[in-house]
C-alpha cells in the first residue's frame, strides 16, 4: 500500500513537471504538401488484352471510384486514424497519466510477485501473454507491410499472358504525383516486373 501511495505521489509530481516541460515539445508534423507524391489507396488491377479496341481503356468500378474519392478527401492519407489517436492534448494527458500509472502498478506487481513463490505461474502466464501479444503485433506489422509473397509475384507472367491473350490480376497502389511541366503529364502505369535471373530483391 505504501508503495502504491509513493507511486501516486511521484506521478503527481511528475505531472507537475510535465506541464512545464510541455513548452519544449516540437511542433506537430505538417500534413504532406501538395507537391509531394503519396499513395492514397491500395486496390487491385486487372490487365487484359482486347483485340476489338482501338484505344487503351481504363475501366473503374463505381465503388472503386467512390473509395478513391473518399481517400482523396482524407488528404494526407488515413486522416481518421491519425485524428482519432492524436487529436487532443487533454486526451493525451489523461491517457499518458493512466499509462504511467499502469506501468507503475505493473512494476510494483512484478516486484512483489518475485517474493511470492505462488505467483510464479501467473507471472509466466502474463509473460507468455505479453510475448504472444508482441508476436501478433509484429506479425500484423509485417502483414501490413505486405510480407509474404511480394506484390510483384502476381505480375511475373504478365508479358506471357498478354501474348497468350489472357488477363493478369495483381495489387495496385494508386499514387498521386505532382504535376511536372517539363515532362509527360498523362497517367502512367508502372508494372513491377523482374527479370528471370534477377530473383528476389
Amino acid at each position, binding site marked *: 500500500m505504501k508503495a502504491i501511495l509513493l507511486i501516486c505521489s511521484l506521478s503527481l509530481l511528475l505531472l507537475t513537471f510535465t506541464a512545464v516541460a510541455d513548452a519544449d515539445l516540437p511542433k506537430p508534423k505538417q500534413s504532406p504538401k501538395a507537391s509531394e507524391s503519396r499513395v492514397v489507396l*491500395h*486496390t*487491385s488491377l486487372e490487365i487484359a488484352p482486347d483485340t476489338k479496341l482501338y484505344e487503351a481503356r481504363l475501366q473503374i*468500378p*463505381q*465503388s*472503386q471510384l*467512390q*473509395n478513391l474519392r*473518399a*481517400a482523396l478527401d*482524407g488528404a494526407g492519407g*488515413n486522416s*481518421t*486514424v491519425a*485524428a*482519432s*489517436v492524436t*487529436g*487532443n492534448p*487533454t*486526451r*493525451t494527458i*489523461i*491517457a*499518458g497519466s*493512466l*499509462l504511467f*500509472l*499502469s*506501468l507503475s*502498478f*505493473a512494476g510494483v*506487481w512484478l516486484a*512483489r*510477485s518475485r517474493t*511470492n513463490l*505462488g*505467483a510464479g505461474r*501467473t507471472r509466466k502466464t*502474463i509473460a507468455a501473454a505479453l510475448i504472444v501479444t508482441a508476436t501478433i503485433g509484429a506479425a500484423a506489422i509485417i*502483414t*501490413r507491410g505486405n510480407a*509474404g509473397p511480394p506484390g510483384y509475384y502476381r505480375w511475373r507472367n504478365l508479358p506471357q499472358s498478354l501474348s497468350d491473350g489472357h488477363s493478369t490480376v495483381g*495489387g495496385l497502389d494508386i499514387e498521386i504525383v505532382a504535376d511536372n511541366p517539363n515532362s509527360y503529364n498523362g497517367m502512367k502505369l508502372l508494372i513491377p516486373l523482374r527479370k528471370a535471373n534477377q530473383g528476389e530483391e
Partner: protein
Amino acid sequence: MQSTADLKIPAWTASPARLDRSRTTLFVLALGACALGSAVFASWLPLQVSIVTVFLFAGPHNWFEFRYFLMRLPVRFGNSRNFFLTAFTGIGVLTVTYLLLPVAFRFGSWSEEAWTIVIAGWNSVLIGWIGMLVLLRARQKRKSDWSWFPAVVLAAGAFNWFAPFFFSLVIVYLHPVVALWFLDRHLMRTRPQWVRTYRKFLVILPGLLALMIWRLSQTPPLVDDNGLFWRITQHSGAELLPSVSSHVLVSVHLFLEMLHYGVWIIALPFVGSAIARHGKANQQFWRPATVPLFRHPRGFPRLVAAMLVFAAILVVVLWFGFSVDYATTRDIYFSVAIAHVLAEVPFLLKML
C-alpha cells in the same frame, strides 16, 4: 439342439465410457463444422450472411444467454450482495447512458473532439465498473492473485483515452470471443473431460482467422452503396480502418459473431443435454424447472417463468421487426444489445 427362438439375446447397450467417447467425438465434430462453416460463409458472402445470421440468431441467442444467466443467479445473494448490486447498477446505468448517447448527439451541437471525449468518458465508466467488479470478486476469492488487474485496467483506460473509437471497436470484436471463454468455464465445471479437446480447438481458431485475413486481404472493399450494407461495414470498423479492406473486417467480425451464436445456441445447450442423458439432471432448455431460481423452495417460479416467456415474446417481436424494417430494427437491436454485452462481465467473473 436349442432353437433360435429360445435364445435370449440381451439388448445391446453402450457402456458409459463408449457413450462418453462418442459424445466427445460429436462435440468435436460439431465445433469443427461450426467453425469451418462460419469461416466459409463469412468469407464468401459477408454482407448477405450477416443479414441472415442476425435475423435468425440474434434474438434466440439473447434468450439462451438470458436463461443461462438466470441459471447462474443464486437464490440469495449472501456474501455476493455487493457484487451483484454493483453489477446490476452498472448494467442499468451504462445501458441507459449508452442508449442516450445517440439522442444527445442528435439534439446537441457537439464538435468532433467533444464527442470523442464523451465516448471516452462512457468507456472510462465501463472500465471503472469492470475494475470495481474485479475488486469485489477478488475479495471473495482470497486464494486467487488479482494484484495484476489494476495495471491492466489502467492500461485499458490509457488506450481508451488515446483512441476512444478504437477502444469501442475492440469491444465489438472481443465480445463474441467472450462466449468461448464462457464455454470453457462451463466445461470445466460440468464436463472436465472435454476441456482438453475444446482448448485444442481454440488453438486452431487464430490459424483459421489468419487464413481468412490472408485470403481476403487483397479483395476489394465491399460495395456498401445502400444504407443497410453501409451500417454493416461501419459496425465492423470500415470507417476507422480505411486502409483495411471492408471485406476482411466484415468477414472476421461475422465469423466471430457466428461462433458466438453457435456457443450460446448450440454448444451450451448441447453440453446441458449431454449431462441430462447421463442422468444427472433434466436439462431440457425450454423447461423453466431447469433454472434453480424456479425449482428452489425459496425461489421465484412464477417470476422466472414469466421472464422466460416474455423474453421469448421479445424474440418473436424482433423477428417481426426485422421482417418489416430490417435496417431500423438492426440499429435498435444493436443499441439495446449493449445490456447483454455488459451482463456477461459479472457472470463471467463469478465463474472465474
